[in-house]
C-alpha cells in the first residue's frame, strides 16, 4: 500500500542554516502519526516544508506517490493537505464565521469534495456556533484553536497537519480538542500531530516519530515505544534519562 503522504530525504534550509537533514516519513490513509521532539528540533519546519512554505526539491515530498515538493501552498491545499499552523494564524478582524467561510469559499471554488460543512464543524465544536459573530481575536485560546481546526477541516483535507494544538491551553480544553481527533479520523483523514506532551502524543496516535536537530531519531508504534527510548531520542544519546 502506498502512503498518502511521504517524505524522502527531506532537506530544508533557512538561508544558510540547515534545519532538516534528510527526513524520511510515511503517513497512511486514516492513520494518526505523532511527531515529537524538543523545541527547535524542526517539527514546524517539517510541516511547513510539506505545505510548500519553504523551498524543497520536488521528489522529497510525495502525495499518493506523486512528487509534490515545493508546490505552492494553495495548490497543496487543493490537493488535499491542510494545516492547523503553529500559533493558529487566524484572520484577525474577521468573525468566527467569516474565518470558517474563507475555507468554505475556497473549497467551493475548486470543487473540493469532502464531508465537512459548517453545521458539522459546529457539531464538533458547539461553541463556534454560539460565537459565530464574534471577532476571532476576542476568543479564548482554546476557542481560537477550535476555529483554526475548523478552518483546516473545511478545506476538506485527506491529510491534516496539526502543529502544537495544545500549546498554552488548560488540560480540560486540551482534552476537549483532542476528543475531536477520532471523529476527524473517522472520515478517513490521515493526521500528523506535532505535540510537546509525549504522553498525549502517544495516546492520540498509532505511530510516532521523534525528531532531534533536524533528524528522525526514533520511530515506532506509539503503544510499543518505551519511555527510555523516547528519552534517548528526545535529548540525544549523550543525555541520560531522568
Amino acid at each position: 500500500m502506498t502512503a498518502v503522504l511521504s517524505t524522502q530525504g527531506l532537506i530544508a534550509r533557512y538561508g544558510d542554516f540547515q534545519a532538516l537533514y534528510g527526513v524520511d516519513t510515511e503517513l497512511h490513509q486514516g492513520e494518526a502519526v505523532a511527531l515529537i521532539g524538543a523545541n527547535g528540533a524542526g517539527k514546524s519546519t517539517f510541516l511547513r516544508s510539506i505545505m510548500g512554505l519553504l523551498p524543497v526539491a520536488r521528489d522529497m515530498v510525495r502525495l499518493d506517490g506523486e512528487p509534490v515538493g515545493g508546490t505552492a501552498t494553495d495548490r497543496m491545499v487543493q490537493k488535499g493537505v491542510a494545516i492547523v499552523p503553529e500559533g493558529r494564524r487566524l484572520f484577525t478582524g474577521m468573525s468566527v464565521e467569516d474565518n470558517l467561510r474563507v475555507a468554505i469559499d475556497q473549497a467551493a471554488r475548486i470543487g473540493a469534495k469532502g464531508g465537512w460543512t459548517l453545521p458539522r464543524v459546529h457539531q464538533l465544536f458547539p461553541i463556534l456556533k454560539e460565537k459565530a459573530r464574534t471577532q476571532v481575536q476576542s476568543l479564548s485560546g482554546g476557542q481560537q484553536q477550535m476555529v483554526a481546526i475548523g478552518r483546516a477541516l473545511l478545506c476538506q483535507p485527506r491529510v491534516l497537519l496539526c502543529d502544537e494544538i495544545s500549546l498554552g491551553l488548560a488540560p480540560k480544553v486540551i482534552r476537549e480538542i483532542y476528543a475531536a481527533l477520532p471523529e476527524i479520523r473517522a472520515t478517513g483523514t490521515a493526521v500528523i500531530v506535532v505535540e510537546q506532551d509525549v504522553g498525549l502524543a502517544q495516546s492520540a496516535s498509532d505511530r510516532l516519530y521523534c525528531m532531534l536537530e533536524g533528524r528522525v531519531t526514533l520511530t515506532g508504534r506509539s503503544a510499543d515505544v518505551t519511555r527510555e527510548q523516547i528519552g534517548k531520542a528526545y535529548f540525544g544519546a549523550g543525555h541520560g534519562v531522568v
Partner: protein
Amino acid sequence: MEWFDALVQGILLGGMYAQYALGMALMFGVMRIVNISHGDLVILLSLIGISMATAWGLGPLPVLIVLVPLAVLMGWVLQKAVLNKVVGSDPLPSLIATFGLSIALQNLMLQIWSANSRSLPGHGLESQSIEIGGIYIGLLPVIVLVVATALTWGLDLTLKRTRFGRALRAASADVEAAAMTGINPRAVYAMATAAAVGILGFAAVFQSLRSTVAPADGPAQLIYAFEAVIIGGMGAVWGAFLGSMVLGISQAIGFRIDPGFGVLAGHIVFLIVLATRPQGLFGKATT
C-alpha cells in the same frame, strides 16, 4: 450662509477625492502597496477617455462605459506583470517600482498627447445646476458625490459579503494563513488592483469633466488621494471616504478664508492628523 456654502462645496469636492482614495486604500489595505503611479493612472485614463470622445464623438456616459472595463483590465495587467513581482513584507520594492512606473507613464503620455491641457466635453452637463434649500449646486459635483458614495458602499459590501471580499480580507490579515486556506494570493491581488484601478476609471471621467488634465498632473492627484487615505485611516473603505470629505471641506473652508489658502489648508489638516493621530481619524490604533 457663506460658510454653509463652503461646507457643501467641500463635501462635493470630497466626493471627487473619494474616487481617488478608495483604490489607494484598497491596495494599501490588502497588499501594503502605496501606488505612486495612482495619479498618473487617473490622468492616463482621462486622456484615453478624451481621445475616445473626440475621435468617436462620444458623450460622458459611453466614455465611462468603455473606460471602466479598460481600467479594470489595466489594473489586472499591472498587478500580474509588475506588482506581483515586487509585493511582499518589505514595502520598498513596490514603492520603487510604482515610482518608476509613474515617471514612465508621464513620459509616455507626454509623447502621445503632448503637454497640452484637455478636458472631456460634457455636452452642457458641467454647467447645469440644481437648487437645494436656496443654494445653487452644480449638477456635476452632485453626481460625483453620489457615484463616490455608491462606489464606497459597493466596495464595502463586496469586502464584507462576497467570496472575493472575504479572500481579500483574509489575505490582508495574514497572507500566509490565507494561502494555507487555499487562497492564491497573487490571483486575489490581481483582482484587488483591477478593482482599485477600475474605480479610477470613474475618477478619470469626472476629473476630466470638471477640469482640464495634462500629462504632468498625476502627482498632484496622488497627493490628494494619499492625504485623504491618511486622514481617514489607512486601509479602511469608509475611512477613505470620510477622510476625503475632511480634506475637501478643509480645502473649501481654506479657500473661503483666502483663495490662495485652499489647498494649503488641506495639507495642514493632513499634517495635523499625521502628527496627532497617525492611525487616521477613523482608523483603529494598532497596539
